[in-house]
C-alpha cells in the first residue's frame, strides 16, 4: 500500500498550525511572548513558579494567534498583524538590531518600551499581546498543575485552612 508523499513527512509539528501570519512573523511572535514571560531557571527565586519555562517555550504564541484569528474584532486583529510587522523596525530604531538579534534582556526591555508607547496602534497591539499571552500562560498545563489543578478531584471541602505561600 502506498501513501501520499506528504504523509511520510507528517508530524504534528510539521502541520501549519498558525493561520494568517507569515513564517517570519510566527517566529517573531514566539520570541515576543517569551520576552513577555521569559524562562527562568533559578529555583527559589522571588516566588514559587518562577523557575519555569517561558511562554515561548510553551508555544503560547499559537494560542495568541488562535485568539487573534478567531476571537478578536476585525479592526483589532488587523492592527495586531500590522504592528507585529513593525516590531523589527521599532527594534532597529532603538537598538540598530532586529528583535531576533537582541539579547534576552534587551528583548524584554524592547517589549517594555513598546508597552509604554502611547500611539494607539501600539497600545492596541500590546494590549492584545499581553492579554492573550497571560491567558494562555496561566491556563497552560504546566502552570495549572503548579497552581494545584485537579481535573477530577472527586471531593469538595467547604472549609479548609488557607496556608499562604
Amino acid at each position, binding site marked *: 500500500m502506498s501513501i501520499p508523499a506528504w504523509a511520510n513527512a507528517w508530524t504534528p509539528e510539521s502541520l501549519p498550525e498558525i493561520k494568517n501570519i507569515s513564517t517570519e512573523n510566527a517566529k517573531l511572535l514566539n520570541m515576543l511572548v517569551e*520576552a*513577555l*514571560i*521569559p524562562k*527562568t531557571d533559578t529555583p527559589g*527565586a*522571588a*516566588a*514559587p*513558579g*518562577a523557575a*519555569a519555562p*517561558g511562554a515561548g517555550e510553551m508555544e503560547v504564541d499559537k*494560542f495568541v494567534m*488562535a*485568539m487573534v484569528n*478567531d*476571537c*478578536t*474584532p476585525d479592526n483589532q486583529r488587523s492592527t495586531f498583524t500590522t504592528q507585529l510587522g513593525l516590531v523589527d523596525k521599532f527594534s532597529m530604531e532603538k537598538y540598530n538590531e532586529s528583535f531576533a538579534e537582541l539579547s534576552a534582556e534587551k528583548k*524584554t526591555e524592547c*517589549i*517594555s518600551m513598546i*508597552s509604554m508607547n502611547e500611539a494607539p496602534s501600539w497600545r492596541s497591539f500590546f494590549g492584545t499581546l*499581553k492579554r492573550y499571552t*497571560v*491567558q*494562555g*500562560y*496561566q*491556563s*497552560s*498545563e504546566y*502552570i*495549572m498543575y503548579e497552581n494545584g*489543578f*485537579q*481535573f*477530577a*478531584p*472527586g*471531593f*469538595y*471541602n*467547604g*472549609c*479548609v*485552612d*488557607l496556608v*499562604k*505561600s
Partner: protein
Amino acid sequence: MTYLNINSVKKRKFDAIIVGSGMSGGWAAKEFADKGFKTLILERGKKAEHIIDYPTTNLQPWELEHRGRMPDKVREENPIAASCYNFHEGAAHFFMKDTEQPYVQESPFQWIRPNQVGGKSLLWARQTQRWSKYDFEGPARDGFAVEWPIGYDDIAPWYDYVENFVGISGNKDGLDSLPDGDFLPPHEQNCVEKHFTDSVSKNFDDRHIIIGRCAHITEPRQIHYDQGRAKCQHRTICERGCPFGGYFAANSSTIPWALKTGNATLMPNSVVHSLIYDDKKQKAVGVRVIDSESMEMTEYFADVIFMNASALATNHILLNSKSDRFPEGLGNDNGLMGKYVAFHNYRAVINAEYEGFMDKKTAGKRPNSSYVPRFRNVYKQETDFLRGYAAGFQASRNSQSNYEGVGKDLKNNLAQEIWGPWRVGSHMMGETIPKEESYVRLDQGLVDKYGIPQLSINVKYDDNDEKMIQDFKEQFTEMYEKAGFTNIKASENGRVPGNDIHEMGGVRMGKDPKTSLLNEWNQLHSCKNVFVTDGACMTSTSTQNPSLTYMALTARAADYAMKEMKKGNL
C-alpha cells in the same frame, strides 16, 4: 442501535411511539420498554451514544483551542444558541444551529435547543427540587390560569420513584414548601454559605437556605450500578457528557436502559412533522417523520403516542397536526393550544463580598450550590405581586493574580497568590404568570427546510415580573446586610424570555376540557391516546427547576397508559 429502513406497515407498527429522547422522553421509553411494550423512540437530532459521542469529555482546559471560547464567526452565525452559558468549546456541538429550524420572534425570545439523543438532559443544571402542595395550589388560590387537576399527593410517589433511579443528593431539610425525598448524601455548604444560612434563619422566621438537591450520584446504590453509572468525580464539566454517568442524563440512564430490554428502537435524525389522526377510529394512529438526512417522509404507527419533544416543540408538532376533525391542531377544540406559555424569570442577580473566614478557603470542586426555597406568598398573599421566587446562592474564594509588568517582573507577579475576600452571589428564579397573550402559533407564511410552518413566539415579561425583580433585590440586599456582606451590588442581566430554558405550557393540564388541553393523566381531552408529559403540559411554572417534575409526571402517565392499554381502553 437499530435503524429502520423497512417499508412494510407491520414493521412500522409499535405499541408506543415516544416523540423525543430527552429528560421526559427517556423516562417514557424506559417505562414502556421495561414492561414489555414495543416502543419506538424518535429523536430529531443526531445519534449521541453514552461516552462514545462525548468528544470533549476528557479534554484538559489547555486542550481547548480557544480555552473554551467559541470563535466569533460561530457566535455571530448562531446568536440564539450563543446566548446560552453552555455554548462553549466543550459543549457547543450539543446545541442546534440557529438556521436548522428557524422561528419567528414576535417579541425577543431565545429558544435554546439541543440537537441529539438525550436532548437537554446532557446540558442541564441538574437541580432537582420537588414541587410542594403550595406550588400546585397556586393558580386556584391566586386566581390565574386554571386549577391544576392534580396535587402534591398525586405526584409524591412518582417523585420517589424517579428520584431513586436518577439519584438525587440532598439533605432532609424538613420544609413543607420543598418536600424531602430519599436522598443520597448531600454536598457540603462552605463556611460562608453556612454563615449565611445561620444569619438568615436567625433574622427571618420564614426563610431557609439549604444545599441544593441535585441529580448527582454522591454514593451509588445498586440501581445506579445496574445502569452502568458510578460516583460523581466532581469534575464540574458535566455539560460535555459524563463518562462516569455521575449526573443523570437520558444518554447514560433511561435510554440505554430502554434499549437493553430489547423492546425499544431508537431512531435519531427523525424530525416529527405531525401526528396522524384517523377520523373513523377517532384517535391518533401514528406520526409522520422526515428523515433529516434523506428528507424523505415515512409514517410510523402506534396505539399510544407520548409527546416529549420539549415544551415548545411539542406545541409546534401538535399545532401542525391538522385534520378534518382538528383543523386547528390535534386536540385543540377550545383554541387554547399554544397559549398560556410561561417561563422562569432569571433577570436579577446580587453579588457581594465577605471579609469573614479570611483564614479559610475551599478545596476540590462542587457541581452544586446552595438554594433559597421560595419564601414569598407561600402560605398566603402578602406582597403586591403574585407568587414568588427561589434563588441560587453561592460563596467562593479564589486567589487573584497581579498582571503588572513585563518579563521576569510579570512572571513573578503572576506567581503570587493574592487572597482577597470571599465572593458571594445569588440569582433569582421567579415564577411567571401564564397568560393568554403569551403564546406560540404557526406562522402563516414562513416554513423551514422540512416544509413545516415556522413557530411564531410571543412571550414577554409583565408588571408582576418587574415587581418581583425589585422585591428580590430589596430582600436579598437586606439579607446580605444582616449577614455582614459588603460591596453589595444588585443588578439586572438583561436575559430575555427563553434564555432561562424553562419555557412551559401551551398544552396545559386542567379539569375542564373547555379551558385546558390535557386531563389529570396528561391525556389530550379529545384524543385520549396522545399524552403530553414534557414542559408543554404545565399549568403553572412555580419556581423549581422543572426537569424532576417532568420526569415524575411522565412515569405516572406512562403507568396509567399501560394499565389502560391492558384494559383495552386505548
